[in-house]
């Protein structure tokens, strides 16, 4: 299982990478493995305001649909539209090409609530 040190995490299995006030968000390698082959991804529209904890996307495997929650509050500035055509990108490269959305963060203090790699790993093993 791959848990990159340079990313932040949530207990609900999202990863977060922050650069210049914009958070890139996806699901962890562990989550994609548990969900298995994804067949459909529903992403939020650009410009939507979200609060930390809001369901922002739905990912579906053959067996089940799962919500993705906003790890931070802010404005959706970019959904990864490539995933609509090829959801399997999330399985193949969850931390890279399989990123799901970008949020322009409105509350920097929320970043402190995210987990580091060691804490996330502790929670799932």
């Amino acid at each position, binding site marked *: 299982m791959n848990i990159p040190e340079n990313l932040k995490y949530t207990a609900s299995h999202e990863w977060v990478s922050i650069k210049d006030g914009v958070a890139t968000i996806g699901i962890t390698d562990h989550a994609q493995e548990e969900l*298995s082959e994804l067949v*459909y991804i*529903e992403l939020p529209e650009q410009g939507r305001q979200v609060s930390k904890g809001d369901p922002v996307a739905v990912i579906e*495997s*053959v067996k089940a649909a799962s919500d993705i929650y906003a790890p931070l509050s802010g404005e959706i500035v970019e959904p990864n539209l490539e995933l609509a055509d090829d959801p399997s990108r999330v399985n193949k490269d969850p931390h890279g090409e399989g990123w799901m959305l970008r949020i322009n963060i409105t509350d920097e203090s929320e970043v402190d609530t995210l987990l580091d790699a060691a804490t996330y790993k502790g929670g799932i093993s």
Partner: protein
Amino acid sequence: MPTAPLLHSPLHDEHLRHDGRLVDFAGWKMPVQYTGILEEHRAVRSGCGAFDISHMGQVFLSGENAAGWLNGILTGNIPEMGEKTSLYTFMLNENGGIIDDLIAYRLGPDSFLLVVNASMVDEDVTWLQGHLEDGVILEDRSRQFAAIAIQGPKAEDLAREMLGETGCTMPARNTLAYFTGASGTTYLCGTGYTGEPGFEMICPLQDGPQWFNKALQTGAVPCGLGARDSLRLEMGFPLNGSDLSPARSPLTAGLGFFVDLEKGPFIGKEVLLKEKQDGIREKLTGIEMTVKGPPPRPGYALFANNEAAGNLCSAGLSPSLGNGIGLAYLPVALSRIDTALEIDIRGKRFAARVAKKPFYRPPR
């Protein structure tokens, strides 16, 4: 509520060895997938897959009155069954509702094997015992067998290699063969739940791992319950508990073909005769999404002309077709092929239509 510990299949160690992802199913710990549902599904459509179906129940009935007695319990014509043939049939309650759908195999003139759903073994056996008559012996031997389904266009080639030393080949559809080895009798059944050619092997517990491994060595892909479900749904085959229930008759489930209303009395017959005379109001109907969208799921609401029409029973993405498919009880007026419908998925409506079953037809 305290729950009983989950049963392990006789192939449990094999599932662990092949990285099977184990889930709870009908009181058993069973593999939902090994490498992935889509991959396993495609392996069965193009080559061959091996499924552990050891969780299913095996109930043996014998005695001079067995055939006649079963004829009063099941919807199919049991006395007319040839030796070493099988029949898909129903066990109904007094209201004509489905207790279980099962396959009856005639082993001999006075000897039958019923293969029943894992979740229903106890209920079925209780029902059968409650109606038992003199001259009929019932043995629930559900825990004495391993069972493996070998399914796919290459099943026959595989069978030749797998079964070589037994002198058996793949049994023809709806027929039965058996051979007896050191640990007991193994039944080879020309049946399945995928729409592909293949057979189901019911063997003594201790022989299970060896046969499963032999199937894999000769080219079968290990397949879990996930692919078993998507394969059967593409064929429009119902699943008891999802598509069949004690509150629904085989006629409303669109399975009247497997009910012989001409034969003598059987439990539920009077209700079905009346239902047939009055006409059914709802029918289990095939539904296919006509637009790209999220996979349909059990329970999603259906609409016709903006009015509620029913809810999906079994539903999901068809790996072979690439679109959403499902089954639902719809008013008969809406069950005609091509009737336009909509599926509500998280508050959005997606176009669908009534489709002919099977949804997918394997090329022959």
